């Protein structure tokens, strides 16, 4: 039997995440511009708005007591942020132009040297970095730390940053976005109120900016509601990373391709690793693999463990200790999967939730900041006297600016580079080189991609290759989740929507895919299907389940990982 995740859709309709305001008018929380997500995009938007409103007090006054608010589901800004990360500083320079704050951005310095390796099980071949992977002058950061810093600046600029606040529904009425509804707190597992129950609220705004990052819950609903689907389905990769304290400094950034992934196209294993120095005594390392993979035994968490046993990596980590862990999906559809428009009446989309990630260069944070700045400027223009953000097309200038900027120019150049790796590593590599040299003009053909959940499943003996956890170099999933700082309340309703009785292959796919051991195989029925047991409180909200046939929704505000170094 051929099993595809897409044939077992989750019990979830995008329309569930859309509602009209229900609180009586007097009880709604009114803000000027409401930003969903305290990541680089949302916070850059808040900071830029603060700058613009400072110069235009009359506009600020019209926006009421809270001109700018940022809601964030994590325990604090940065709690849910995870990336490599090597950042192109271009957009941060623009955000803090002429300000001493630019020197305050928390970084681990500039990239001074880099190495790219092609790995086999026993050897490593150093190759010249492809042009897309040259990083001289870029900054090494922890995006979690960057988020905390940006949140402080946003607050200093007058924005209200509201952590532990999950945006469950997009408020839409009269054809325009009016704000969001936050989730209830203190519900029991079956949804009945517990002692500490607190109702959610309607937060209404003149402009709502969705900057939710990967797998945006409301972005998905908005794309559906306003018909913004791109030409091609969105696809994702899953990245799992660790931060290590090491006795010897690493001097350069390392990327690897090849092993432990298998080259043949039939497996659909595409990805690679990164190892970045974080100062003299830490390194950040991770493994990223596209979720188009097909093998039910494939597990990025365990591929990372396998990767660490390579001599090249052992040497870097020798004598060290793992101090942080986390996982997150990366939006990889690129240019072809961008939404048709980046706006709707009353609404702007920014950052990764709008698909602004450049896979060949492994970058997206500067696009997030840049689009956040542009969204702020577009929102500001619409709030000037005589304008109305609700007017259809009021934000058309945001699209024009994005398209004219380096953000979309870059993405257009590399538009087919990710897709061609569906043909396997060697053919894909050759086609990608041609695209690099010709800035995307050759080959003269557009390449499509299949949605991650459409891939048929196969099974090989993949899991036999994963090393047995030794608690020093290699770890099991539960120890990893513990390091994420996740202390989610166990008795809250499950925020993960999946079919609970599925073919064994699909259940195993989920069990192995999830880096946080959320899914477990339950009892088998007579017809060969199995029950999937779910431990939602382990979830670090990486979003892989949404790519592979389920649907992640935001848990109660304040739940999930508490990243600080990732």
């Amino acid at each position, binding site marked *: 039997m051929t099993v595809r995740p897409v044939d077992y859709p989750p019990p979830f309709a995008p329309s569930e995440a859309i509602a009209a305001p229900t609180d009586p008018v007097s009880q709604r929380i009114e803000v000027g511009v409401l930003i969903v997500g305290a990541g680089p995009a949302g916070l850059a938007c808040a900071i830029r708005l603060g700058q613009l409103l400072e110069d235009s007090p009359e506009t600020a006054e019209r926006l009421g007591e809270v001109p700018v608010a940022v809601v964030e589901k994590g325990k604090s800004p940065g709690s849910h942020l995870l990336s490599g990360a090597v950042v192109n500083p271009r957009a941060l320079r623009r955000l803090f132009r002429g300000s001493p704050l630019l020197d305050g951005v928390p970084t681990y310095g500039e990239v001074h040297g880099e190495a790219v390796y092609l790995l086999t099980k026993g050897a490593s071949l150093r190759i010249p970095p492809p042009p897309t992977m040259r990083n001289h002058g870029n900054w090494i950061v922890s995006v979690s730390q960057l988020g905390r810093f940006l949140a402080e600046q946003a607050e200093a600029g007058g924005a209200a940053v509201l952590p532990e606040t999950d945006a469950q529904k997009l408020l839409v009425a009269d054809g325009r976005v009016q704000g969001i509804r936050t989730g209830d707190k203190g519900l029991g597992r079956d949804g009945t109120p517990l002692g500490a129950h607190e109702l959610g609220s309607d937060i209404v705004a003149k402009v709502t900016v969705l900057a939710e990052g990967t797998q945006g819950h409301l972005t998905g609903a908005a794309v559906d509601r306003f018909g913004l689907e791109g030409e091609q389905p969105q696809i994702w990769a899953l990245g799992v990373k660790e931060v290590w304290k090491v006795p010897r400094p690493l001097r350069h950034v390392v990327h690897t391709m090849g092993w432990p992934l298998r080259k043949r196209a039939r497996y659909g294993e595409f990805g690679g690793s990164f190892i970045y120095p974080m100062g003299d005594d830490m390194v950040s390392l991770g493994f990223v693999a596209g979720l188009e993979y097909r093998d039910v035994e494939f597990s990025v968490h365990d591929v990372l463990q396998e990767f660490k046993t390579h001599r090249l990596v052992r040497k870097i980590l020798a004598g060290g200790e793992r101090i942080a862990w986390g996982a997150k999906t990366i939006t990889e559809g690129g240019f072809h999967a961008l939404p048709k428009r980046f706006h709707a009446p009353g609404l702007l989309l920014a950052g990764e939730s709008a698909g602004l990630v450049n896979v060949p260069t492994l970058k997206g944070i500067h696009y997030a900041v840049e689009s956040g700045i542009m969204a702020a400027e577009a929102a500001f223009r619409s709030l000037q006297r005589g304008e109305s953000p609700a007017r259809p097309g009021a934000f058309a200038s945001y699209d024009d600016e994005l398209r004219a900027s380096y953000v979309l120019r870059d993405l257009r150049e590399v538009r087919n580079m990710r897709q061609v790796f569906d043909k396997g590593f060697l053919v894909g590599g050759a086609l990608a080189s041609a695209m690099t040299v010709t800035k995307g003009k050759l080959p003269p053909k557009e390449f499509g991609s299949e949605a991650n959940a459409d891939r048929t499943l196969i099974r090989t003996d993949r899991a036999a290759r994963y090393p047995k956890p030794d608690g020093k170099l290699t770890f099991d999933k539960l*120890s990893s989740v*513990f390091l994420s*700082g996740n*202390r989610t309340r*166990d*008795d809250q309703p499950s925020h993960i929507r999946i079919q609970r009785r599925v073919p064994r292959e699909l259940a195993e796919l989920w069990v192995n895919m999830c880096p946080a051991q959320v899914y477990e195989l339950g009892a088998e029925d007579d017809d060969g299907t199995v029950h999937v*047991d779910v431990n939602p*409180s382990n979830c670090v909200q990486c979003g892989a389940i949404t790519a592979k046939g389920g649907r992640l929704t935001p848990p109660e505000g304040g739940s999930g990982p508490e990243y600080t170094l990732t």
Partner: protein
Amino acid sequence: MLGKAASLGGDVAGVLLGSGVEGLAHQAGIYGAATVYVADDARLEAPLPQPRVDAIAQLVGEQGIETVLFAQSILAADIAAGLAARLDAGLNWQLTDIAADSGTLVGKQSALGDSVVVDVGWKTTPRIGLFRSGAFDPVERATGQTQIQTFEPELQEFSLAAEMVEQAHAEESGPSIEDANVIVAGGRGLGEPEKFGLLEELAKALGGAVAATRAVVDAGWYPYSTQVGQTGKSVSPTLYIACGISGAIQHKVGMQSSKTIVAINKDPNAPIFEFADLGVVGDLHAIVPKLTELVRARKS
């Protein structure tokens, strides 16, 4: 805790607040209090925090008391917080120990899911500390004379505004897992929910309580109130018997401060054997009933 306080040097006093409690004062003396302040007052009968905040705040002012230590309970936590606010004093909580370091008091506070112990101090007096229950063993100290001083607390009007309407106990046969000296805990290795009966029998024989791991609570085998671990309760009984528990770190952080840990598990590679004081590799379904029988026989 009186014993611990006495070991730090300085004068140690106990405070006894309640109604009809005066007779208990001499006991505080046995454990190391040189003075016991007693307020025996009908208005202190109900377990309400505010009148007690009044009484202790008054004592701190009149007697020049520099440090006030509490043992964890819901009432004590309320009083400690109220007292800190009233006196504008620093409060350290979740303490597991305290020491005098060249004249300065340093508390040990367990943090990050019990994975680290942090030294905490106080910038000003009075210092307020709230200790985890079971942090210290009671030590009898024959100090000779204990001075018992009764005093009349002046209670604020607002402190008497709350009134105890009803006090009810959750229906439980044995001690709660927070209070139990012995805990028998079950995990997925039990195989099925009915097998908790075996653990209940053993707990009853030992006068202890039954606890559970998150996995089995999630599966609905046992109530959430008995969950031990990172997202459940933290316990430190004298004896913790882990049956069919693999010992994932999420469970470990909730019970690793138990005095003696005994693990019964059929998987010899289970992580729990790495931190158990006594490990038994075997079938708990055979071992636990035998153990219950032996305990009963020994007792009778």
